[in-house]
């Protein structure tokens, strides 16, 4: 089956079956310098979703997953918070806690990791629709994060999509 792949702003994310996503940079407002944000979800993402899932996590069902890859400015590189090198590629059920939520919603749990990859500082934030079903959901999260590739700043590719489908596609 064809695997859709999202590629924009130096982030390349093949999407496992059932996931949809968006990689974007918000319009610049005032003195703020926006950086890329990637949203991934197993449910229909609304058009307007806050960076860390506001407007989306309330729509999650118990079998749903929502993940955010959020980039910070280059001034964050070298700070202790971003000491970890490389995005975690395999999470465990123990990594998810009901108190690690930007917005505490009953039954949900989350995990958040700060790291630097390819010289770019990021945070990965993942929400599970049901902490009780984390045993089934965490492998799907790992399927998603395992193949996400981040390019160095300045080497970002033009936004595009790719597919591993049949030639006629």
């Amino acid at each position, binding site marked *: *089956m*064809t695997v*859709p*792949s*999202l*590629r*924009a*702003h130096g982030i390349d994310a093949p*999407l496992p079956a*059932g*996931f*949809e*996503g*968006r*990689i*974007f*940079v918000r319009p610049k407002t005032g003195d703020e310098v926006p950086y890329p944000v990637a949203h991934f979800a*197993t*449910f*229909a993402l609304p*058009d*307007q979703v806050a960076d860390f899932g506001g407007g989306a996590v309330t729509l999650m*069902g118990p079998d749903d997953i929502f993940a955010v890859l959020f980039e910070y400015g280059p001034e964050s590189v070298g700070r202790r918070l971003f000491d970890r090198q490389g995005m975690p590629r395999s999470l465990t059920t123990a990594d998810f806690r009901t108190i690690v939520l930007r917005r505490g919603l009953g039954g949900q749990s989350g995990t958040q990791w700060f790291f630097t990859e390819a010289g770019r500082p990021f945070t990965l934030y993942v929400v599970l629709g049901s902490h009780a079903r984390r045993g089934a959901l965490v492998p799907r999260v790992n399927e998603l994060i395992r193949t996400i590739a981040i390019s160095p700043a300045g080497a970002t590719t033009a*936004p*595009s*999509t790719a*597919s591993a*489908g*049949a030639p*006629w*596609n």
Partner: protein
Amino acid sequence: MVALAIILSMVVLVLAVLVAGLLRSHADILKALHDLGAGVGEPGNPHGHPGPGPAAHPTGVPLTIGPPLPGERNSTSAPAIAGVTPGGDALAVSVTGGDHLTLVAFLSSGCATCAGFWQAFRQPDQLDLPDRTRLVVVTKGPEMEIRAEVAAQAPPGLAVLMSTEAWADYEVPGSPFFVLVDGRSGRRIGEGVAHHFHQVAELVRRADADARDFALGASASRPFAEGLDGPERERANDRELLAAGVLPGDPSLYPSSLDDVYGQGGPRTAPVPATTAEPTTRAG
């Protein structure tokens, strides 16, 4: 005088040969079309008039449009749609899973008919779609469309993707074209063209009602539920019709109005001009 008569006779003879050749050529063309399954009226009607008639031998060659689909797909498959937004971001929409319908509108920035749809999408509260319906607009990719023109047409708050690949995946013959996907079954449950959005909305409501009927279980169609397609689906449907006592030529197979299909007071809620809003199916 004799010479003139001989010349005229020769001319008549030559013309007769030409007419015979043309008739023979025409017969060959008709035979070839018949072998392909195309013809006038019902295949089983020797007089070529539409309407009930005796069953004929099956036409074995389905008419297909476009390139053959990959082996793992058929004409009801609903692959994820991935593309870029007019603003240059990447966007992928999964149309399967969940309990919602996804209406995919394949539009162009320049086609005159599409302009009405772009305009209609600016007032989403007046689209009159069922509550659980998600609307996604797909244009061809940036290599075939101008981003700025699509951006100018794209209504705020609506998912608009640019993806030529999606047009191929969904075998879109041209714009405007609409595909309705049922997330629960993960399959296309309707597709077709229309001139006005209220026609599309009506088709969506009918498809939604049909999907709910199938979901009830008791009246579920086995071919629908099993995702059969092409000749297998036709054979399975034939078996179910025969089991229900509906034989070839049964008048119920030839409805003359929507009331014949749904009965008085059925799910139809507004007149639908069938000539401008025609769901289509494909074999292949």
